[in-house]
C-alpha cells in the first residue's frame, strides 16, 4: 500500500509543478499561424471556404488594396482615372511587376481575369461586379481600360480590389482544366509570398517571393497549419508554436493571462441580427420598432458576449467612411414598446398576450444550435418580448434546417431568425434591402429573406450603385441607414469583435477591421 501512496503523491506533485521551458518557440524568420479548415482551392475565384482566402491573400494582389485605415491605396496599379460618365475606368499598371514564375504582369492579365470570372463553364464562386463589365481595352501592356455597361460605383470595391490571375498560366487551359488545375493547390501570383508546399490537412508553407514588386519580405516563410480543433490551437499557442492565434471567445480570459503575448482587439465586419420575416404583423413598421425597443441589446453585449461585441445601429461598420454618425440606438424601453403597440391597435388578451383583429401577436424566435451565445441571447430576447405581450417560442436548430427549404424562413409566418452576417467593410447591402432580392422559391437565395419592400429604399440603392462620386454616394448611404433605422427591416444586435494573440518576438503585425499590416513587414525574432 505504501509504495502506491508514494506513487500517487509523486504524480500529483508532478502535475502541479511547472517545468521550465525547453523549447525556443518558432524559428526566427518563420511565421506560424493556424486555420481550422483545409483550404479547398487557392484560386480566389474558385474558393468556397474562408480558409482558402486566408492563404491565397499572401500570394495574390489586386489593382488597389485597402489599408489598415480603410483607405484605397495603389497596389498593382500605379494610378487610375474614371471618365465623367462613370463608364470607363482606366488603370495604369505598375511597371516591372513579375509573377512568381518570372513572367511579367501585363494588361492581358487584367483582361483575362475578367474573362475567367465570367466564364460560364468554370466553377466560379466569386464574380460579383465582373458581370457589369462590357469589355476591356488593352492599348499597351501597362494600360487597361474597363468599359462598364452602366455606371457602377461598387466596381471599385468588387473589381478593383479583386485578385489578378495570370493569363499565361490559365489562359491556354479549357474550363474543365481550370476547374482541376494544379494551380488550384499551388498558384502563381504576384504577392509577397508563394506556396512552396501544400500538404493536405497538415500545413501550407509559403516562401518569400524574391520577385516581389514591393518591399522585400522580412520573413523567410509563413507556415499555415491546419488544426481543426480550437482547443488544440490554444495549446499550440501556449507551447510557443504559433506566432499569432485567433482567440476563441470562450478562451479569451485564459489566453489573456498567457505570458509573452499581446492582444490585438478589432471590430469584425460581421454583425449579429434578428431577421424579422414580414408575413403578417411583422409587415407593420410599428410592430418591428416596438420589438427593437424591447430587445435588450446592451445586456446581451455585456452579459452574454462579455463585452466582446460593439453596438450596431446600421449595417455599415461604425469605424468606416460610410457609417451614419448621426444615428443613435433605440434605447431599451419596454414601456415605450408597449405604447407603440397599443397605438398600433393591439390590445392585451388572455395571458397578457397582445391581440389585434382577433389574432394574437406571435413571433417565434429561431437560431443556430451549437452556438452558445446565440442560444443564450435568444432566451434573453424571448423573455423581454414576452414581457410586452408578444407570444414567442424559442427554437435552436442546425443551420441547414434553419435556412433550408423545409425551414422557417420559407415555411413560416412571422418568424424571427438570429444569426450573423459577414457583410464586410463595403456598402454592399442592395441584396439585403432591395425588393428585387426577395426570394421567389425555396432554392433561390434572394438574401432579402425578410421580404422588406420600400420603393424609396429601392430607389436609393439603385442610385447609390450608379453614383461614382464619393461624397454624393455617402449622402445616399446616410439616407439608406436612416431608413434602416426607421423601418427596422432587421434588428441589429451587435458587431462581433475579434481578438488575436500575438507572440512576443513578432514585429510589424497589426490588424484592424479592414486589413492587416502588409505581410512583407512582419518579422519574427
Amino acid at each position, binding site marked *: 500500500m505504501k509504495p502506491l501512496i508514494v506513487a500517487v503523491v509523486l504524480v500529483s506533485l508532478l502535475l502541479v509543478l511547472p517545468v521550465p521551458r525547453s523549447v525556443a518557440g518558432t524559428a526566427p524568420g518563420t511565421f506560424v499561424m493556424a486555420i481550422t479548415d483545409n483550404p479547398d482551392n487557392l484560386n480566389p475565384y474558385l474558393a468556397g471556404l474562408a480558409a482558402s482566402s486566408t492563404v491565397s491573400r499572401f500570394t495574390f494582389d489586386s489593382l488597389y488594396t485597402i489599408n489598415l485605415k480603410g483607405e484605397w491605396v495603389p497596389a498593382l496599379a500605379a494610378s487610375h482615372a474614371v471618365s465623367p460618365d462613370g463608364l470607363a475606368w482606366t488603370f495604369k499598371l505598375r511597371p516591372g511587376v513579375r509573377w512568381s514564375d518570372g513572367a511579367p504582369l501585363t494588361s492581358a492579365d487584367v483582361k483575362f481575369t475578367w474573362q475567367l470570372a465570367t466564364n460560364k463553364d468554370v466553377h466560379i464562386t466569386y464574380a460579383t461586379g465582373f458581370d457589369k463589365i462590357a469589355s476591356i481595352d488593352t492599348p499597351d501592356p501597362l494600360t487597361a481600360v474597363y468599359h462598364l455597361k452602366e455606371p457602377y460605383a461598387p466596381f471599385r470595391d468588387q473589381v478593383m480590389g479583386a485578385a489578378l490571375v495570370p493569363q499565361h498560366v490559365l489562359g491556354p487551359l479549357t474550363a474543365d482544366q481550370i476547374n482541376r488545375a494544379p494551380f488550384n493547390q499551388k498558384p502563381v501570383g504576384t504577392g509577397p509570398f508563394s506556396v512552396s508546399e501544400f500538404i493536405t490537412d497538415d500545413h501550407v508553407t509559403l516562401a518569400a517571393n524574391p520577385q516581389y514588386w514591393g518591399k522585400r519580405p522580412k520573413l523567410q516563410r509563413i507556415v499555415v497549419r491546419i488544426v*481543426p480543433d480550437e482547443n*488544440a490551437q490554444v495549446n499550440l499557442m501556449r507551447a510557443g508554436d504559433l506566432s499569432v492565434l485567433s482567440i476563441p471567445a470562450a478562451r479569451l480570459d485564459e489566453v489573456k493571462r498567457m505570458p509573452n503575448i499581446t492582444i490585438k482587439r478589432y471590430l469584425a465586419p460581421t454583425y449579429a441580427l434578428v431577421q424579422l420575416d414580414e408575413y403578417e404583423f411583422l409587415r407593420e413598421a410599428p410592430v418591428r420598432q416596438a420589438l427593437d425597443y424591447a430587445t435588450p441589446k446592451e445586456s446581451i453585449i455585456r452579459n452574454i458576449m462579455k463585452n466582446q461585441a460593439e453596438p450596431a445601429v446600421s449595417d455599415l461598420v461604425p469605424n468606416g467612411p460610410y457609417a451614419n454618425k448621426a444615428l443613435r440606438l433605440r434605447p431599451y424601453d419596454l414601456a415605450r414598446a408597449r405604447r407603440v403597440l397599443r397605438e398600433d391597435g393591439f390590445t392585451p388578451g388572455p395571458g397578457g398576450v397582445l391581440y389585434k383583429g382577433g389574432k394574437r401577436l406571435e413571433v417565434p424566435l429561431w437560431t443556430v444550435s451549437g452556438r452558445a451565445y446565440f442560444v443564450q441571447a435568444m432566451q434573453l430576447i424571448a423573455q423581454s418580448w414576452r414581457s410586452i405581450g408578444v407570444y414567442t417560442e424559442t427554437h435552436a436548430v442546425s443551420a441547414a434546417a434553419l435556412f433550408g427549404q423545409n425551414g422557417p424562413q420559407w415555411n413560416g409566418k412571422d418568424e424571427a431568425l438570429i444569426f450573423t452576417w459577414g457583410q464586410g467593410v463595403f456598402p*454592399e447591402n442592395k441584396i439585403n434591402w432591395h425588393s428585387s432580392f426577395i426570394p421567389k422559391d425555396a432554392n*433561390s*437565395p434572394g438574401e432579402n429573406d425578410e421580404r422588406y419592400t420600400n420603393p424609396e429604399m429601392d430607389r436609393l440603392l439603385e442610385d447609390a450603385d450608379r453614383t461614382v462620386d464619393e461624397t454624393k454616394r455617402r449622402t445616399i448611404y446616410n439616407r439608406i441607414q436612416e431608413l434602416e433605422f426607421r423601418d427596422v427591416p432587421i434588428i441589429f444586435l451587435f458587431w462581433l469583435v475579434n481578438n488575436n494573440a500575438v507572440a512576443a518576438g513578432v514585429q510589424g503585425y497589426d490588424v484592424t477591421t479592414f486589413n492587416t499590416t502588409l505581410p512583407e513587414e512582419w518579422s519574427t525574432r
Partner: protein
Amino acid sequence: MGSYVARRGVQAGVLLLLVSLVGYAIMSLAPGGPLAVYLHNPHVTPEKIDLLRHQLGLDQPWYLRYASWLKGLVSGQWGYSYYTGRPVLEMVGERLPATFTLMLSALSLAIALSFPLGVLAATHKYSWGDNLLSFGSFFVWAMPTFWFGLMLQMALAVRWHLLPVAGMHEIDNRSVGDLLRHLTMPAMVLGIGSIASWSRYLRSGMLEVLGQDYVRTAYAKGLPAYRVMHRHVLRNSLIPIVTIMGLDLHVLFSGAVITESIFAWPGMGRLFLAALNNRDYPVQMAGLMISATLLIVGNLMADLTYAALDPRIKYQ
C-alpha cells in the same frame, strides 16, 4: 472453402450496392446541400449559385445523379470533389499513409498491451491487478476521447514539453524519430479504447475456457503453466476477440475523427467529416464505400479466422 468465400463475395457486392443507394439517398435528401455554404456568403450572387448548381449537376433529381455516380464507379472513376475539383481518389490517396501509420500504431499498441493484460487478468482472477484492470477499463470506456486527448495534450505537450502538441511532423524534420514523437499521443488515445475492450473480451473468453475439463487434464498431465496457456487456452479463447477486432477495423481507418482533429493528424477521418459538413457528395460516397467495404472485409476475415482457430468450424 473457396466456394464459401465466393458466396460471401457475392453477398458483399449486393450489400455494398444497397449501402451506396441508401447512403446516397439519405445524403441527397438531407437539408442543406453542397451549395449551402455559398447561400450565406454575401459575395456569391443568386445567379452564381444557380450556375454552380447547374455545373455540378445538382439540378437533377438524386436518383439520376446516383446512376451517373454508379456508372462512374464501375468504370473506375470515383468522381471529383465539388470543392477542390480534384479527383476523389487522389484526395483519399494522399491521406492513406498518415491514416495507415496511425491505424497500425494504434493496432499494434492495442494488441501489444491488451493481450498480456487480458491473460494476466484471467489467470489472476479477482486479484488486485484484475480489479485494477476492470476499474481502468470501465474508466476508459466511460471517458470521452475528446477530453482524454486534450488532457494528454495539455499535460504531456504544453506543461511538460515532452511531446509535440499536434501535427504529423515538425516543419523541417522528416526523420522517423520525429514521426514517432508526433505519433505517440494520437496512437495512445486511439488505442486505449481498444485496449480496454479487447482485454475485457480476452479475459472473459479465457475464463470460459479455463473452466473446461481438458485444461484441468492438461495441468494434471504436468504441463507447465505457460504451455497450457499458450497451446490450449489462448487459442480457444480468441473467438470473441477476433470478432471484435474484425468489426473494429473500419473504425480505425475512417472513424478516428476526434483524435485526428485534436492532434491535427491529416487522416481520412477529417476528410470525411469535412465532406459531411460541406455536403461534398463525391467524397462522402467514397468514404461510405471504403468504410462499408472495410467492415465487410473485416467481418469476413474474422469468420475465416474462426475456421483457422477452431477445427470444428467448417465452411462449405
